[in-house]
């Protein structure tokens, strides 16, 4: 592993760009082929009581936790340096942002990653959705909505060290209230959480009998683990501008990808996130072409256009407030065992269920 780290250290930017592209291709191909869809999983539950795709999502999270924690224990990736394990707990952003994201993805035809794979199969409506996601994400980070987001964050976020808690990692939080070391409590909590998630998945005979769902959960989880391994090996704490370890997440990177396209001549090397965005589109494109499913599609009418743009705007704002999306927080984030990621996961699901009910009512009123 040390030899690999030394090799990557020679050209870390190139490794992150090429590796990110390949991981993105793998992810886009898998999502496209297996119909893995976080919004679709909520639709399945609300529309007809099928929990298999949701269990595939949970399985992906469990696999990602196992992999990320193992990589951290082996010294491959310093998860503590990731953005998820910060010293503030932005409960408002995680909950309200997650709700907005979950609600929005129902109207936008899927989360950011789903829309990336739709673009790969020729859906121009998804391309428009992603443009809106990117613009609203940047508006929320440092644009016209930035000051408001900043005020809300500074007003509501809890500074954990002032309360005797080092970070929002579950081990650190538990160590404040029960005897034991943060690392030991983190490991114990991780084992219990993973056991609970796996039990939830595999106690279902329906899920156990569905190889494609099991495969999709395992494969998406492995994509996230691969991302952690790559960015962990490329991480250099002594670099002038260290790139924090990260794995698949698609809100900020979608916005960054738009910036990269517009400022290419400024000599910007695409980072890991930007590379995964283009990789996901390419992977879905390869899948669509290989199965004869590549077809150009666009908005069907004004109502469809309004729905998608509204949903995409909510995803852009909510995704920034919550620091991630259905992938970025609800798989990659939870793999660090950060409390905020679990809060966001729950909020996204709640927002998705609420959005599904609202969409169902709106469609019923249309006819």
């Amino acid at each position: 592993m040390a030899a690999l780290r030394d090799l990557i250290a020679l050209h870390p930017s190139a490794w992150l760009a090429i590796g990110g592209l390949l991981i993105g291709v793998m992810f886009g191909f898998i999502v496209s082929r297996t119909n893995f869809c976080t919004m679709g999983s909520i639709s399945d539950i609300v529309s007809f009581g099928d929990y298999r795709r949701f269990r595939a999502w949970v399985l992906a999270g469990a696999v990602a936790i196992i992999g990320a924690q193992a990589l951290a224990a082996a010294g491959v990736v310093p998860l503590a340096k990731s953005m998820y394990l910060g010293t503030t707990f932005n409960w408002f952003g995680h909950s309200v942002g997650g709700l907005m994201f979950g609600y929005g993805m129902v109207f936008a035809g899927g989360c950011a990653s789903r829309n990336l794979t739709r673009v790969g199969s020729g859906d121009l409506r998804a391309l428009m959705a992603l443009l809106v996601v990117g613009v609203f994400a940047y508006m929320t980070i440092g644009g016209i909505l930035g000051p408001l987001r900043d005020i809300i964050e500074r007003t509501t976020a809890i500074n954990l060290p002032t309360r005797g808690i080092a970070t929002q990692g579950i081990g650190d939080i538990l160590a404040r209230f029960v005897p034991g070391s943060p690392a030991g409590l983190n490991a114990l909590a991780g084992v219990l959480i993973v056991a609970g998630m796996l039990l939830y998945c595999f106690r279902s005979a329906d899920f156990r009998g569905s190889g494609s769902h099991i495969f999709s959960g395992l494969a998406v989880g492995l994509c996230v683990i691969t991302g952690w391994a790559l960015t962990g090996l490329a991480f250099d704490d002594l670099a002038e501008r260290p790139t924090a370890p990260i794995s698949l997440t698609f809100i900020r990177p979608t916005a960054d990808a738009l910036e990269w396209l517009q400022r290419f001549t400024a000599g910007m090397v695409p980072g890991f996130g930007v590379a995964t965005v283009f990789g996901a589109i390419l992977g879905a494109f390869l899948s669509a072409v290989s199965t004869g499913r590549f077809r150009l599609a666009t908005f069907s009418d004004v109502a469809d256009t309004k729905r998608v743009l509204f949903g995409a705007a909510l995803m852009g704002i909510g995704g920034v407030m919550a620091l991630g999306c259905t992938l970025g927080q609800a798989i990659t984030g939870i793999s660090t065992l950060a409390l905020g990621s679990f809060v966001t996961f729950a909020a996204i699901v709640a927002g998705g269920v609420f959005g599904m009910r609202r969409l169902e009512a709106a469609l019923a009123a249309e006819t």
Partner: protein
Amino acid sequence: MADKTIDARGANCPIPILKAKKGIGEVPVGGTLEVLATDPGSAADFQAFARQTGHTLVEQGETAGVYRFVLKRASA
């Protein structure tokens, strides 16, 4: 000839399924609902819908990017 037809062409998930869920309740028991869709994910969605609800997916096909599903309403 189906008892009712829903044209969900151009609509992405979850709209075709939500429309089918409403539409199947509007045909008589034993009657059929035809759904037209263009979302590539709809094939898997309608298989899961039929499997879970007990309605029978009596026909399923794709022509030039348009998916056609015919559901027969179950008694319950």
